[in-house]
């Protein structure tokens, strides 16, 4: 770092114009190797936290049964109806399950103390302790019979019930932080477990998530999966061919044959859907399709009953989905193809006109060959984005009617993050996303091959 006094003339001059402050603190090194790492570090932190970690965790979560029921930070151990079901069915421990879910009434010091605090008759409680300490009863009636047998028995039924209620002992629906705590409680409860039972109980009583390959089995077995897959392929390729490349070509070629004024006008109009926030853009389509919307009002005199044109049939839903996504997608192709066409030397067009070529021949022999690479670029790029983005479908049809427009990416969202389906299945959703993540990484790597990578990584000239 230079001292201010030795600052060269250019530095003082540009100092006032420069409003950017250096990132965190002064960097003291002239060595640009370290400077580079410093400048890259913040980006590295972001990339690690929100790219690398999520990629890895998607893989990890995909192999868990994580859901709203299991929580995400690990769980507790609990005896409950839910956890006893697998104990009976998977381990055949019916008797153990019965005993664990039973309530037991034991006359102990803690119970006696609690009975006093609850306002029970002191003399009766003292006598109960003397005569029945450490005795257990299967039912509350047993305790109450014992109380009634006392000489200092309370005069009212309520007095008896206040005392008897304090001796109920149960391990059901109590959360234990560790397996050891649970086992201690069970042995205090008077049940001795053998090794196999301890193992089984540890498995079934755990409320947190566990590792499993079940998600992938479910994915293969469910008929929904293949339907979603077919939907996805249909959606991606139809939109891609008709709009993202097809209509984009139409837009760029027609505006090419126009004076600059109208060309700019049309390009701006067709860029609007990309600039319009998705929520508002889809709202316009909903207005068009709603049962009191534009189409219904305009088509009613022609004998079509008003209806929600977007959701009344799968075919209509798909038409809208493809239009909504395709028009946004087409604008990107339009811009890229237009600039590629602009790069074609004018002389080529003039020469071909002199030779008597018509417009169709110009398009076929001059324009399209020039667009080969841009078309490839758009195809790969848009395949990936159509495959993974679900924003517009979510807003427009939410996968409806009846799941007809549910694509893979949307289904990951609906399974894992949308409240409508009841419990959120994070694990299953992550497993579904993992498929997309793997496709995403593979296609992104193809990019590296397609770009002129050596050129991009030419070494710096000052070292």
């Amino acid at each position, binding site marked *: 770092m230079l001292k201010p006094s030795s600052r060269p003339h*250019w530095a003082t001059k540009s100092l006032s114009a420069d409003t950017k402050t250096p990132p965190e603190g002064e960097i003291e090194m002239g060595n640009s190797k370290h400077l580079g*790492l410093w400048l890259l570090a913040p980006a590295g932190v*972001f990339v690690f936290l929100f790219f690398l970690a999520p990629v890895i965790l998607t893989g990890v979560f995909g192999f868990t049964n994580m859901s709203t029921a299991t929580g995400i930070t690990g769980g507790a151990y609990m005896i409950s109806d839910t956890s006893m079901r697998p104990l009976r069915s998977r381990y055949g421990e019916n008797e153990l399950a019965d005993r664990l879910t039973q309530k037991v009434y034991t006359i102990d010091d803690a119970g006696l103390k609690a009975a006093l605090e609850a306002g029970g008759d002191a003399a009766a409680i003292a006598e109960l302790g003397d005569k029945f300490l450490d005795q257990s009863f299967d039912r509350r009636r047993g305790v109450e019979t014992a109380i009634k047998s006392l000489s200092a028995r309370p005069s009212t039924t309520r007095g008896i019930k206040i005392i008897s209620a304090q001796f109920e002992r149960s391990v059901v629906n109590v959360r234990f932080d560790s397996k050891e705590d649970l086992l201690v409680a069970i042995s205090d409860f008077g049940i001795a477990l053998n090794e196999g039972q301890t193992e089984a109980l540890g498995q079934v009583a755990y409320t947190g998530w566990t590792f499993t390959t079940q998600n992938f089995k479910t994915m293969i077995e469910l008929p929904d999966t293949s339907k979603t897959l077919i939907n996805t392929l249909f959606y991606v390729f139809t939109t891609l061919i008709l709009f993202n490349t097809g209509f984009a070509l139409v837009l760029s070629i027609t505006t090419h044959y*126009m004076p600059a004024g109208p060309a700019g006008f049309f390009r701006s109009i067709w860029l609007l859907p990309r600039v319009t926030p998705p929520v508002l853009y889809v709202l*316009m389509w909903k207005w068009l399709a709603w049962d009191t919307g*534009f189409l219904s009002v305009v088509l009613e005199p022609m004998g079509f009953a008003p209806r929600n044109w977007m959701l009344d049939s799968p075919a209509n839903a798909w038409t809208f989905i493809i239009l909504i996504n395709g028009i946004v997608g087409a604008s990107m192709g339009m811009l890229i193809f237009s600039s590629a066409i602009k790069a074609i030397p004018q002389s080529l067009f003039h020469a071909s006109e002199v030779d008597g070529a018509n417009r169709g021949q110009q398009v076929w022999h001059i324009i399209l060959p020039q667009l080969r690479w841009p078309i490839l670029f758009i195809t790969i790029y848009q395949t990936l984005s159509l495959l993974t983005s679900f924003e517009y479908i979510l*807003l427009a049809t939410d996968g409806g009617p009846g799941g007809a427009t549910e694509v893979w990416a949307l289904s990951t969202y609906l399974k894992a993050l949308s409240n409508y389906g009841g419990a959120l299945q994070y694990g299953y959703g992550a497993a579904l996303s993992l498929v997309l993540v793997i496709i995403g990484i593979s296609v*992104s790597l193809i990019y590296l091959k397609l770009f002129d990578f050596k050129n991009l*990584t030419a070494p710096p000239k000052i070292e």
Partner: protein
Amino acid sequence: MSTNYRRWPTILFLGILTAPLVLMYVYLFVDTITNSPPGSMIPNEFTAEHWRFLTETIPGRPSIWLATWNTFVFATVTTVIVLVVSSSAGYALSRLQLPARSFFLGGIMVLHAFPTVTLLIAIFLILQMLGLYNSLAGVILVKSALELPFGIWIMKGFYDTVPWEIEMAGIQDGASRFQVWTKLVLPQVKPAILALGIFSFLAGWSEFILPLVLAPDNKVQVLSVYLAALIADDQNFDMALFKSVGIFYVIPVIILFVFFQNRLMNIYSGGNKG
């Protein structure tokens, strides 16, 4: 261009294709200030009633001004983070000797192409674990991170076009590389910073999925989520109200689009998700 051909057929052809889109946008504006009789699309009166949401809070929704403020904070802070991090990382990748430089470059390129929305579930769980779920800070960090590969890539591209001679001269005058960057190179890429800034702001302002999943709470709700929730509520269906909220929401976008259309066209064709 190609003056030998008649122009009006192409203009007519594209005009017909464009008409429905124009119609949708025209009605988007018209419906917010007029009423039409039932069963007709032709307005018969002007009204300001669809804009009443500006003064009275819609039941069950946060105040529109709170949502606007949240959106503003979200878009602005995201933009600042993206600009600071991208302009430094972009410079490092463009000009500085780094260990494993080609690995970093390749990595940024892969990240740029990678569809980030697939990571949503994992990011949701990470924010839950970090305790940043349902907070603006959390969703700002995520949005900035997801914009970064694009930002770094764009900035690197712009730095690449700055002549080396400028830096050589700076070094010869005794400046450090850091000074060369801040005092000489950054002023050269001001247009890039402006373009990336506008783009990031618009991206933040329009973002829907991330706030929907990561910060849906009324207190931190942004306008996109606010509007979507309004539309999804079957109890109060009022298309004109939705459109008015939508127009209110989109005002900054319109302003930026009108003033910076050409810059945006350039940066959009540089490739972004969608």
